[in-house]
């Protein structure tokens, strides 16, 4: 049982699907990816900025290497763009020297410090102020939506069950403090535990949709992983939700940079980055705002201003009016310096994969291998690791119409007229792609967007939103008013026309009302 279908949960589930095990993934959101895996820099870090000896330093370069083959195996967009950490002035240059030595110790290949002239020779839009930059040729960028989906999608094909909109409310135990069955946040009687040496064992999880039994539970719940961990009695870490805000710019300015640009980090985080995304947009961000709220993914005027100023420090010419949208993600930072990956002694069968902060996306495939090794080593009595005879490592994404050759397009259009119906003009998305996304699990407008990109372009859904709502309703067999943007009460429409009569009273006197569902 894996809690959370982000990049951590997804990579672990896929790794587990190599074995003849019954694996289920529980995800509280309506769409994947939802949490930090949805809103991040989609960067595959080289692995030079983590202190040698940490788990981060261990998993990040390995993850980087794994992505090189994984993107082919699982068919998600990946671009080996390389990265520059840019230094402005001698103080920051010192930092580059430190990163270089970290990188060498961590085994990151090809690192090199170049001067500002060389940088600008390769990257003409880079600021004149930049005096030196650390070049990391193995750094890459992925489409993080596609990558997150790819692992889960492949895991499902190999027999993993995915339960969406399923929120864990408690854990089930066998053993001394599991007598009452459920250990809730503060429902664990520690005194009993200490009196009795018998080990408690995990028996499953309870959710708002009912109980699930499981011998092993992996906590990959991201921003809520500390809450889940506490249910198991481990309160040794606390998640420190950290909001990061981003701008996305139009594709027409995507080529202002070829590589991923980092600022020198400050105490606030890794600093603002500027990058060309795997889909050729320009990405600017993030800010780093520590907050109490685990759900607050709001952008703020000040935050956006801050990242924009940070970005033009590296690439002065970024035209603000070419921004097409902004968004924020909440990173599941913890109060620990490092990742917190640990199989608990008690209850047995509970594994924390928590505090997966940056470079978590990069590290995820390496962490997944490590987690499976941990299970083999210490939980072999609970689960047997026999190979899954039906395991297929390869998986194809839904064909991307915009990237097909004319012959391929023609062929598809002949097989199904829906391949001949463009739904999204900006990103050239066909109806067939939308239908296939829904078949593979998209349930909302945002879900369809995550899968096949309608609404990610410069019109931001102005043209395609009505079409996507219509197709979702048709394919799911529900009324258009049932369709939501991203689950919950994010309904797109409030009713049919002609249902409510206009009122003659002045607008301010009229009673607000809500959709009847």
């Amino acid at each position, binding site marked *: 049982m894996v809690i959370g279908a982000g990049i951590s949960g997804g990579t672990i589930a896929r790794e587990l699907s190599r074995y003849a095990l019954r694996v289920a993934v529980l995800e509280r959101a309506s769409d994947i990816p939802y949490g930090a895996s949805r809103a991040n820099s989609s960067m595959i870090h080289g692995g030079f900025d983590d202190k040698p000896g940490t788990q981060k330093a261990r998993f990040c370069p390995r993850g980087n290497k794994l992505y090189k083959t994984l993107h082919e195996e699982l068919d998600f967009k990946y671009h080996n763009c390389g990265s520059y950490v840019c230094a402005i002035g001698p103080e920051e240059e010192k930092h580059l020297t430190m990163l270089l030595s970290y990188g060498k110790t961590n085994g990151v290949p090809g690192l090199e410090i170049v001067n500002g002239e060389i940088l600008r020779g390769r990257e003409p839009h880079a600021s004149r102020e930049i005096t030196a930059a650390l070049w990391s040729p193995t750094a890459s960028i992925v489409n993080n939506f596609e990558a997150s989906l790819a692992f889960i999608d492949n895991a499902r094909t190999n027999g993993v069950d995915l339960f969406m909109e399923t929120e864990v409310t408690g854990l089930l135990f066998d053993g001394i403090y599991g007598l009452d069955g459920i250990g809730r946040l503060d429902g664990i009687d520690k005194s009993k535990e200490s009196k009795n040496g018998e080990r408690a064992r995990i028996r499953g999880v309870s959710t708002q949709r009912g109980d699930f039994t499981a011998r092993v539970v992996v906590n990959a719940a991201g921003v809520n992983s500390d809450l889940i961990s506490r249910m198991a009695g481990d309160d040794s870490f606390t998640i420190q939700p950290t909001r990061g805000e981003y701008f996305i710019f139009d594709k027409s300015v995507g080529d202002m940079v070829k590589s991923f640009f980092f600022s020198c980090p400050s105490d606030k985080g890794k600093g603002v980055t500027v990058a060309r995304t795997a889909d050729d947009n320009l990405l600017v961000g993030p800010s780093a705002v520590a907050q109490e709220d685990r759900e607050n993914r*709001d952008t703020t005027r000040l935050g956006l201003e801050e990242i924009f100023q940070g970005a033009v420090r590296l690439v002065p010419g970024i035209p603000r009016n070419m921004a*097409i949208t*902004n968004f924020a993600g909440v990173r599941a930072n913890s109060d620990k310096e490092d990742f917190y990956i640990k199989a608990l002694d008690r209850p047995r069968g509970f594994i924390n994969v928590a505090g997966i902060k940056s470079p978590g996306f990069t590290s995820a495939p390496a962490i997944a291998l490590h987690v499976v090794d941990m299970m083999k080593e210490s939980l072999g009595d609970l689960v047997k690791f026999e190979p899954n005879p039906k395991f297929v490592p390869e998986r194809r994404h839904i064909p991307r119409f915009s990237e097909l050759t*004319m012959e391929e397009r023609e062929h598809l259009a002949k097989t199904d007229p829906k391949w001949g119906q*463009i739904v999204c003009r900006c990103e050239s998305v066909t109806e067939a792609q939308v239908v296939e996304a829904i078949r593979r699990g998209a349930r909302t407008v945002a879900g369809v967007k995550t899968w096949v990109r309608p609404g990610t372009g410069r019109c931001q859904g102005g043209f395609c939103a009505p079409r996507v709502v219509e197709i979702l309703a048709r394919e799911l067999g529900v009324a258009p008013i049932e369709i939501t943007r991203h689950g919950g009460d994010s309904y797109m429409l409030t009713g049919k026309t002609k249902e409510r009569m206009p*009122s003659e009273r002045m607008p301010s006197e009229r009673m607000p009302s*809500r959709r009847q569902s």
Partner: protein
Amino acid sequence: MSAARQVDVAIIGAGPAGLAAGAAARNEGAERVVVFERDWEPGGILQQCIHPGFGLHTFGEELTGPEYAHRYLTRVREAGVEFSLNTMVFQMDKPVLKDGRKTVTFWTMQPERGIEQIEAKSLVLAMGCRERPAGALGVAGSRPSGVYTAGTAQRFVNMEGFMPGTKVVIMGTGDIGLIMARRMLLEGAEVVGVFEIMPWVSGLRRNIAQCLDDFGIPYYLNHSVCELRGRGRLEGVGVVEVGPDRQPIPGSDKFVTCDTLLLAVGLIPENELSRMAGIAIEPITGGPIVNEWMQTSEDCVFAAGNVVVVYDLVDFVSREGERAGKYAARYAMGRLENAKREFKIVPENNVRVVSPQTLTGEDDVTVYLRVGSPVESKCRLYAEPGLFSQRLRYARPGEMNEIKLSASQLKSLASDVTRITVGLEVL
């Protein structure tokens, strides 16, 4: 792939500009004139603009959008224009020389016929414009549902039969927003108010009168929607008053409860295909640079309507569409000589937008222009050297002005004159 289909004049988009271009191209004598339209019927955005106000210049009466489309379609069908409906043009090459003249090739997709390659002797771009989304304005906050451009809401309400919301705030005073304020109200929604960041209204003044004032809907100038709130559905918006520098006035923030935000914050010419074809785009208008023949930087490619510059009135779109169709037909038939001269029209003195941007001087022309900021007193519109002077009682960004120049005037200009300056002088 089968051989390319040959067309004399290809027109992309069956909105008012494309329809006008099609009819004009046929009437000029072109044989195979085909209009490619992505929707299942011609008419473009007119079909969802069910309000009156179209066609006073063209038909001498005020029609609704669908009526205007219907009238125009009658003309187009009589002219013998061919339609290819449900057809999306999704790729276009830069025009190449073929048999001594430029030809343009593009690809279309249609559910029944699949992909087709089209080769046209000349082409009219008539894709219209799209609406500016919220992201472009840097509106901060959450990402709830319930934020739509006014045109998307218009499509839902007028064509699909769905209400996008029950309690509406409108950002911007673009015409579609004002029209939708009235429309939503008459469909039983509550319209809380309209917020405009500029100190003036960007739509037509009569739409303030007949869409807002008639129904007691308030509007606020110098106000901007700066924040969205709500994690599922929109729960409200943060509104702030701005100073003369368009920056928020501290302490002026307030929260307005609503479940829907409609954006009427500007229209952008839709030029994806134009860029694919390597057409030069003018940064201010966002559309192709054209001369008075509506010819773009590629000789065989013409452009018409809101793809060139966002016009106020459909009548202007039709008129310029006809012009584009006429010259595109002449080009296709080998009857359009290269121009001997080229004048550049240079805006100055509060004139911001001008279209066309170049002139050959071979034909009479109406130059459309838009001022940057409103002048509410007597002023003089001019074109130098000595071509045009007209006194105006006011000039407003929301209302285009016209300068009519004749070919004989332009031909009489000294041979060293290559610039025509257009400006507005306050008297």
